[in-house]
């Protein structure tokens, strides 16, 4: 696994250079309906030496793919370029980029020294002819080149939209192969764009629904490796797992970290009844949070850790409820037609994503935390299990196709409901969990 030698942001231009990001005309407001993607150009980054040539090309391609993948930007093909950028320091020929209607321009250079790789880049507002913010450089190892590309793209995205990026992040998921009645499942982790897939378990036991710790170093998941569903925590770096002991003879599943990473909330089945419990990770002690004859599962903490949204069928059908993080009276928030499940609190705290089943179709949707302004983003035979991008702008989920040859795969969609895209994985995929931005 690659590690950044340093993640310091080093200003290339001197500190006296003004920052235009917040006031310049080059700005996408994501709160409004963006219909027309912003045209941009990423000419191949300039290699400092022949050893850097392939990295320079590849990094600029990944930067462009990240931006295009948002649906908010449209790349102008290099076939249309009038200017060639052969030096990172040479003045930009703005007229040439204006002529092909590139509103944003990203230029960069790549240096390779042994296994050390350095990327420098600048973002230009073509129509004002000015730099958008300061140039930056990232340094790391050559095998971590994709992460540096994602960091460049995160900078471009956040300077133009004013929102945090999400490209330098990872997704844990369940890799699936084989037919429906003999499906093999393995826990896996990958970059957000499907690159660098790494398997974390073999397919000997069913594994379900991983969730990242707040810092991304651990995963919680459910496995049948002991013969019955139990909760495990896995150290991602060392790929070492450990069972989190719950009461003997019970089944436990649906574990999620609290925002401070010190405790988990999970479902425990006793005598056929499923309730929510909370475990302090230091002591291993669990306390009960719900106590009803109904099914209570799929919990998710609010980002401030004070509340938990969860799914319960206490009204007769599965619906969404919010209760205080230590248990107590729960308030129902879903009132539309159909069945609601798998609520996930957005990292911004303002929305709850969910799965909805209505009239034989499944939907991924979002609603405000009081249940108002419900919007369905997708519709298919079986969509489920939404997870939020670190900036709360994109939702990834799994979609299973119908019938005997049905297959599960991962998709992402913007919270506006636009830009539905498959996320490519080597085999089938389900239960994605989007991790935090990496350092």
């Amino acid at each position: 696994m690659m590690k950044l030698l340093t993640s310091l942001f080093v200003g290339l231009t001197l500190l006296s250079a003004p920052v235009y990001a917040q006031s310049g005309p080059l700005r996408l407001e994501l709160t409004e309906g963006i219909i027309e993607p912003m045209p941009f150009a990423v000419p191949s980054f300039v290699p400092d030496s022949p050893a850097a040539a392939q990295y320079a090309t590849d990094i600029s391609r990944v930067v462009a793919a990240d931006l295009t993948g948002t649906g908010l930007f449209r790349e102008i093909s290099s076939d249309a370029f009038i200017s060639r950028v052969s030096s990172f320091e040479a003045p930009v020929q703005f007229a040439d980029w204006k002529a092909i209607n590139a509103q944003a321009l990203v230029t960069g250079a790549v240096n390779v020294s042994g296994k050390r790789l350095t990327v420098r880049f600048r973002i230009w507002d073509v129509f004002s002819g000015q730099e958008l913010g300061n140039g930056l450089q990232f340094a790391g190892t050559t095998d971590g080149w994709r992460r540096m590309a994602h960091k460049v793209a995160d900078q471009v995205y956040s300077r133009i939209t004013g929102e945090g990026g999400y490209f330098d992040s990872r997704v844990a998921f369940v890799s699936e192969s084989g037919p429906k009645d003999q499906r093999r499942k393995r826990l896996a982790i990958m970059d957000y764009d499907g690159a660098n897939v790494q398997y974390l378990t073999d397919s000997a036991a069913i594994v379900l629904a991983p969730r990242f710790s707040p810092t991304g170093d651990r995963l919680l998941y459910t496995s049948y490796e002991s013969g019955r569903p139990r909760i495990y925590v896995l150290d991602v770096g060392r790929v070492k797992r450990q069972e989190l002991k719950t009461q003997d003879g019970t089944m436990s599943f649906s574990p999620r970290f609290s925002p401070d990473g010190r405790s988990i909330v999970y479902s425990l089945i006793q005598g056929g009844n499923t309730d929510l419990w909370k475990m302090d990770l230091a002591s291993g002690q669990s306390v009960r949070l719900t106590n009803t004859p109904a099914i209570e599962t799929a919990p998710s903490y609010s980002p401030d850790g004070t509340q938990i949204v969860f799914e319960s069928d206490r009204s007769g059908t599965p619906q969404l409820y919010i209760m205080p993080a230590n248990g107590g009276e729960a308030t129902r928030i879903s009132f539309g037609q159909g069945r609601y499940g798998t609520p996930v609190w957005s990292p911004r705290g303002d929305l709850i994503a969910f799965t909805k089943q209505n009239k034989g179709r499944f939907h991924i949707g979002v609603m405000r935390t009081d249940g108002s302004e419900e919007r369905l983003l997708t519709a298919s035979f079986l969509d489920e299990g939404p997870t939020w991008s670190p900036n709360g702008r994109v939702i990834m989920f799994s979609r299973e196709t119908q019938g005997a040859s049905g297959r599960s795969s991962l998709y992402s969609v913007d919270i506006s409901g636009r830009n539905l895209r498959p996320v490519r994985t080597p085999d089938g995929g389900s239960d994605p969990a989007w991790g935090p931005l990496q350092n």
Partner: protein
Amino acid sequence: MNVLSKFAALGALMLIAACSNNDPSALGGGAGGSGAIQPGSPSDPRSPAYFQQTVGDRVLFAVDQSTLSPQAQTVLQGQAEWLLANTDYTATIEGHADEQGTREYNLALGARRANAAREYLISRGVAGNRIQTISYGKERPIEICSTEECYSKNRRAVTVLTGSTLG
């Protein structure tokens, strides 16, 4: 459930009822003849194969439900009688759901179904410590089409025998 499958279930029920009228152990002991019954074969009333095929090892549930239908209760009555007569065996009841539902909810629903079957067996005299439950949610369908015909077979609780004689 459509009318056809209701009739099919009724047919199975009558067959099971006919079998459960006889004491399985008496049947096993009394069927002398010249080796007509191979021990362990489906015709041996003390065999797991007999339990699986003749008594019936599974009960089915309606959409989202874990209540036991009259047919399911009859099958479980037969299972209870068999377990009471064959005390070497213990059982694990596996609860399952069809694919219409979210993964974690269905895991909980499968547990409810397995428990409903377990409670019934206990109510008929089987010791609770002989019956474990596990839920597979929607992870282990036996039928893979995406129609009610398959779904109805996947919404099930299956009683799997364990015990020293099975290794």
